[in-house]
């Protein structure tokens, strides 16, 4: 018990003393996840709105695929991208393996289906009169999509934040593609896994607590948006 309580006290000490290494890792983690969430959002939101507003052959099939991808294990994405980015892979000449870019790409791919699905549900849950009203006022396909997005902005923002939350807690792909290089690709999750295996339970716990604080903040913002 004293092992745990001593570690917890040490972890709090690391956090409150603003330990540079800990905060550097947290910063890397947050920035990688934020960029991944923004890139995925830029693609997922227009895709989600387009799918929700139009009826076309194969729409249901696409939604089934998106649902399946939502449950895709992160190590599988890591594995596939590792194959593509490794020196012998088809994208090997870009030398992306073990860079933050590779982690960003993996996390963006991971959260794209989640954000697309949440955007589709946001648009389909809008007032059924919204689209006919905008059309009768003269909205053309692009302006219609923009206005629908404006009206559903909180639900769409919630989709981005959910994506961010998923990205920051992800460990499999970040480990395989980032390689946990200190000061470069070391994120909170990969560091927790590594530090704990090294016996540095204290550092792992400090990072874990920070991750919990971030998760709490994300959920707090989400519930505030959904009010």
């Amino acid at each position, binding site marked *: 018990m004293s092992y745990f309580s001593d570690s917890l006290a040490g972890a709090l000490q690391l956090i409150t003393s603003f330990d540079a290494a800990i905060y550097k890792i947290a910063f890397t983690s947050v920035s990688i996840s934020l960029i991944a969430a923004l890139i995925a959002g830029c693609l997922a939101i227009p895709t989600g709105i387009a799918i929700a507003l139009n009826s076309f052959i194969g729409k249901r099939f696409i939604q089934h695929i998106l649902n399946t991808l939502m449950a895709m294990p992160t190590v599988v994405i890591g594995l596939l991208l590792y194959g593509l980015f490794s020196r012998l892979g088809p994208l090997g000449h870009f030398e992306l393996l073990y860079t933050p870019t590779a982690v960003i790409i993996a996390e963006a791919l991971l959260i794209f289906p989640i954000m697309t699905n949440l955007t589709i549900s946001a648009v389909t849950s809008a*007032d059924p*009169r*919204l689209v*006919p*009203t*905008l*059309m*009768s*006022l*003269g*909205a*053309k*396909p692009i*302006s219609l999509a923009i*206005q629908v997005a404006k*009206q559903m902005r909180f639900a769409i923002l919630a989709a981005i934040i959910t994506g961010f939350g998923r990205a920051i807690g992800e460990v499999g792909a970040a480990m395989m593609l980032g390689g946990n290089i200190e000061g470069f690709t070391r994120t909170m999750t990969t560091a927790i896994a590594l530090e704990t295996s090294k016996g540095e339970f204290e550092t792992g716990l400090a990072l874990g607590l920070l991750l919990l604080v971030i998760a709490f903040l994300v959920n707090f913002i989400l519930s505030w948006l959904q009010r």
Partner: protein
Amino acid sequence: MTTDAYQLHNIKVHYKKRCVLDIANLSLPQNKCIALLGDNGAGKSTLLNLLAFTAQADKGEILLNGQQTSSPLSTKQRQSIGYVSQHPLLLKGSVIDNIMLALKLQGIKPKFRKDLAQAALKQVNVEHLADQSTSTLSGGELKRVAIARAIVYQADILLFDEPFSHLDQHHYQQLEVIIQQLSQHNKTVIFSTHNRLQGLALADYSVNLVNGKVTFSPLLNLFNGHLHDHIFDTGKLQIHTISNSGNAHNIAIDPNEIIISKQPLESSMRNCFNGRLTLIAEEINSIRLTVDCGEIFHVLISEESLSQLGLSLGDTLYLSFKSTATKVF
């Protein structure tokens, strides 16, 4: 030569395999006030959605001001139509934001927007609500703001779906005046209502819908039943008619063609029923009597006739009408 605002040809709309609208040919003239009359589910809203191009027919074509239409409409065609649905949706924000959005979506240049918006709000007497949030409006205010949003870009055709529903007497009368004013300003106004007398009073011209089909009868005193050998049997009454079409299931009797008397009349009129007077109501330019003869009849008489006959509720009255005053379909 004037073109029609709309020409509909062979329009068919299905909902879950059921045909909800079936119009072979229908022309709606320009610069007239037109009422779409019919019961709930008769297809009024479906037709208005087609006219507003917010829905598409499964079959058939619609000409707008004599021109072919395609989806989406051209900017010019879209600007010629203003539409207010039965339960209009105002977007979050202020009243003026909603009006400005309509102008923006219609591609009106920013420098003209403010003046147009203020003129539209003034026309429907809601200029004092310009900065108010749409979530705080009353039902009547919301309808008028929605009308302002539909008229702001100066469309030639205005479509109103059940504009009088859920309005109190005060807002009701205000809206009647607004519709009358709009139709006097070279606009084609098409509105739906299930209040047939009001529709007939307000409009220059009416289109009657029964089960998705256009019928040429005022649809007052409408009874269901079957026809056999020039007699239409409603189950409660047998009405003489000139028609003998075997597959007719509806009969309508023109409320202006029914003669009211306190004693039975000796006349050539084939139909004579007696019943109890249950309602005396004031309509525009006339008095409406409701008489229960087994079936409920509505009769329109003048104010002079009412005072001459000295009617009061509960009186036994005789209703007489010719077989030519009936329409069977």
